[in-house]
């Protein structure tokens, strides 16, 4: 039931993306309602400031994992509908796995590096 597990992860990643993206959006744009005390949460300084706090780093990395998985799995589903060639599908699978890992390392490096340079 490998593909069913992948599908369940897809659903889980949708929930995860909604939750963590929701937190991110709320902090960025509902400053007045949440009264976070930050003057401009969308400014470069605030963004870098959050990226040096371990709690925020965890949230951003989880958001990255969920959004990346959800996007790549969804895209794979669309491609699967356009081709019936098993060879092409295998190539797409590997491309997405390798590409996904590279994007993950690249995108999570920034907050991790910032946090460790604190």
């Amino acid at each position, binding site marked *: 039931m490998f*593909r069913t597990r992948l599908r*369940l992860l897809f659903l889980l990643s949708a929930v995860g993306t909604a939750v963590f993206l929701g937190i991110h959006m709320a902090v960025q744009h509902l400053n007045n309602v949440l009264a976070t005390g930050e003057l401009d949460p969308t400014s470069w300084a605030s963004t870098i400031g959050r990226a040096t706090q371990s709690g925020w780093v965890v949230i951003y990395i989880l958001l990255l994992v969920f959004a990346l998985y959800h996007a790549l799995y969804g895209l794979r589903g669309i491609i*699967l509908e356009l081709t*019936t060639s098993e060879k092409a599908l295998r190539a797409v699978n590997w491309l997405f796995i390798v590409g996904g890992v590279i994007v993950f390392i690249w995108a999570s490096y920034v907050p991790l590096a910032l946090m460790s340079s604190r």
Partner: protein
Amino acid sequence: MAEHASKVTFRVQRYDPEKDSQLHMQEFTVPTKRGTTILDGLIYIKENLDSTLAFRTSCRMGICGSCGMLVNNYPHLACHTQIEEFHSNVITVKPLPNAPIIKDLAVDLMPMFDRHKSIKPFIIRNDEDEMAKPTREYEQLPDEVEAFEQFSYCIKCGICVSACPTSASDAKFLGPQALGQCYRYCADSRDAGAKERLEIADSNHGAWHCHLAGACSEACPKGVDPAFAIQLLKRKMAVQSLGGGRKEKPAEIYPPPTETKPKIQVPPFTVKK
């Protein structure tokens, strides 16, 4: 024809692979009266206007599933659809989409039957002796029958597959017919083969490829609701993949061997072979 007879134009898609290089439409004028079906019209054409017209039919009463076709661009059983329903003097008849055309309105349903066969559409048991030589029936309560009864009305007409947008774009997709029947057998309390069937539905072109457009259920002439069956199948697969699923044994034979009366002896042949 009766007194209220009127005339309708049938625009029929024609294609003879031995003669035609392209599909083309041909028009016929068909007399109709109240209750005339699309199939009656086609039979009239074949008997009176053009005997080369090819289409499939058998029972003429919505049972055999032979006469599925596209009527005014929507899939119907020709024998189960009256001309009056369309409130139009022009009826367009084409073969079912998502299946190769053999000739005119007759399509090749073998790919659908192959996919149907692939999901093992039969009761799978561990008691092979009983399966090979059944002694009695398996016990099943009305509630247990209800769990799959609706889905067992499938007549394999191919209408759901022709309406399915995923079948149109993915030739390897198992399709609503096979997936619906996959659930039908998995939900049967006499069956012990859910595990192997769910593995088949777990393929790249299996149940998770269904986008729940619901076109299959809307078009199904027997009210089978394959889209609902696929949703239930997905739930079964999700539960199974998390280690859940039916734990109880499949139904036993009934009544148990000790309560059965001895079989009536068949009298010997009175005529020599």
